[in-house]
């Protein structure tokens, strides 16, 4: 086993991509993810790869499309406003069934918003964002180590399903330094494993990468083919972690860095006798519905905590299906939920006090009603 090294999240993610066999990066500067392209611009030429700083995020994602269609392991990274610009291209990638990895170190929005960490891009990542019936596979890492592990996995999963994969991080994951172990499984990627890629039609019929099907019957069939693929992904690729699932009466639900804050709250309150558990989705799509439905049978209630005004909470409610109440607590715009604020919210919920949103806003502690 390799020695742990201390690395900034963005740089560690970039190194993980290279170890996953990614040799092509197309991107455009935006805070707080600039260390990824910066690292790639230095490292990729050392390993025979190519880094291109594109003229825009629109161009970046279309360069990714070209390279993915040409059979390469390829990625881009950006942050919220830049990801919005990529949405057209992501829809095309999904429609043309091209594998690639997109990192979103999301920041506060809407609009230009801010540059501090946020989870307000959950809807965009998991519910479409671009046009048409498609799904992105979305991972929400909660540590630098997990971000690296998921980065390595993301390229394999993208290739397996011929689908774009998004790593939905936040400014904290990108900017903080943590010890990382790069497991000794660095690998090369091979274009020859992709017989559908446009590589020149030597000895075969031409390959075509496209997403246009003007005949409604053909497009209908294409969309149901994609749907079956998404079903298979839902069956095979769900990832989550549960904490104290066995004895918990109340559950926190959180992903990414917020899940770590919730974990501190959970450990502190458990010492004080509160039977609190935590469910941490790792795949945001496919969403871990089954485990939530399962624990809902015995749970007294759930508190979903996010750096948004409440996005994942909708999926939690759908999964719980009314079996138990689902409460919410959130901060936005780069404000990070404090452990004591979450703890207060947990105590209020357990005591049956569910203050309206404005009570929380007055205390400048974020909001959340049932």
């Amino acid at each position, binding site marked *: 086993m390799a020695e742990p090294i201390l690395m900034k999240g963005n740089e560690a993610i970039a190194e993980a991509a290279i170890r996953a066999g990614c040799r092509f990066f197309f991107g455009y500067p935006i805070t707080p993810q600039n260390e990824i392209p910066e690292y790639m611009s230095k490292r990729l030429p050392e390993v025979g790869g190519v880094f291109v700083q594109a003229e825009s995020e629109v161009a970046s994602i279309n360069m990714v499309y070209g*390279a993915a269609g040409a059979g390469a392991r390829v990625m881009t990274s950006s942050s919220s406003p830049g990801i919005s610009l990529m949405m057209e291209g992501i829809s095309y990638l999904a429609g043309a069934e091209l594998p690639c990895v997109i990192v979103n170190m999301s920041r506060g929005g809407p609009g230009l918003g801010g540059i501090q960490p946020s989870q307000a891009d959950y809807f965009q990542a998991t519910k479409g964002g671009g046009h048409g019936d498609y799904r992105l596979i979305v991972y929400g890492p909660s540590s630098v180590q997990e971000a690296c592990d998921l980065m390595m996995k993301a390229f394999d999963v993208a290739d397996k399903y011929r689908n774009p994969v998004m790593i939905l991080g936040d400014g904290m994951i990108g900017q903080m330094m943590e010890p990382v172990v790069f497991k000794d499984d660095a690998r090369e990627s091979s274009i020859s494993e992709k017989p559908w890629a446009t590589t020149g039609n030597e000895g075969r019929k031409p390959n075509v990468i496209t997403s246009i099907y003007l005949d409604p019957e053909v497009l209908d069939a294409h969309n149901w083919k994609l749907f079956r693929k998404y079903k298979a992904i839902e069956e095979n690729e769900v990832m989550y972690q549960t904490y104290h699932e066995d004895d918990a009466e109340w559950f926190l639900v959180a992903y990414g860095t917020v899940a770590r804050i919730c974990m501190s709250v959970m450990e502190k309150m458990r010492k004080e006798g509160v039977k609190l558990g935590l469910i941490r989705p790792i795949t945001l799509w496919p969403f871990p519905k089954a485990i939530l439905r399962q624990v809902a049978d015995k749970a007294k209630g759930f508190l979903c905590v996010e750096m948004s005004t409440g996005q994942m909470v909708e999926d939690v409610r759908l999964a719980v299906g009314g079996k138990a109440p689902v409460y919410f607590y959130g901060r936005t715009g780069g404000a990070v939920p404090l452990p004591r604020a979450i703890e207060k919210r947990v105590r209020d919920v357990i005591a049956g006090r569910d203050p309206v949103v404005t009570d929380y806003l007055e205390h400048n502690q974020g909001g959340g009603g049932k």
Partner: protein
Amino acid sequence: MKPVYLRPKSLTETVSHYCPGCTHGISHRLVAEVIDELGIQSKTIGVASVGCSVFAYNYFEVDFQQAAHGRAPAVATGIKRVHPDKIVFTYQGDGDLASIGAAEIVHAAARGENITVIFINNAIYGMTGGQMAPTTLEGQVTTTSPSGRTHSVQGYPLKMSELIATIEGAYYVVRCSLHNPAHIARAKRAIKQAFENQIEGKGFSMVEVLSTCPTNWRMTPVEALKWVEQHMIPVYPLGEFKTGEGE
């Protein structure tokens, strides 16, 4: 009897969807003839754009990617960077290249991407039914300039070859026309040069091809060819704007 005029190997035997009298058919054939003559069919990768040529991949017997509107030069960049030994070309119309894709073409040229761009300029949006293009002439009536394009309202026609020729990274920029056989022969020589440049690693080459749209111009094919000569060429003069020589 020896046949003297055959379908190029690089063209499929598909009946095209192009309107009668449209010069896309001629442009496709010229590109296919050049691919055949240079012996690069099995190593050529095309990029289709959005517009009438969106289905170009049905007509060329080579690998193809279909790009989002205006993004063909970015897609071609991705392909070429992965396969620098392959021949990559885009085939784009004026709405695609000069309007929504203006940034992508400018920056592909600025980077000196070693690709070949075939730019079809027929001064109108064909696929969507005859709307004003950035290349629409002053006074030209379209479905979105019903009183004729007026520069005080809709601005001036955009001269892409002149614009791209100012970019250091562009190696070869030429404008030609398909309005008669002599000019068709010249257009073919320009297209061949543009592909040869890429084979030799010279860098970014763009061939602008003045073309017709009889359907949306509301003209017969013969009138349309005359209109190119009489009205388009005075605004879009033919010739080489950059030849790569002396560089």
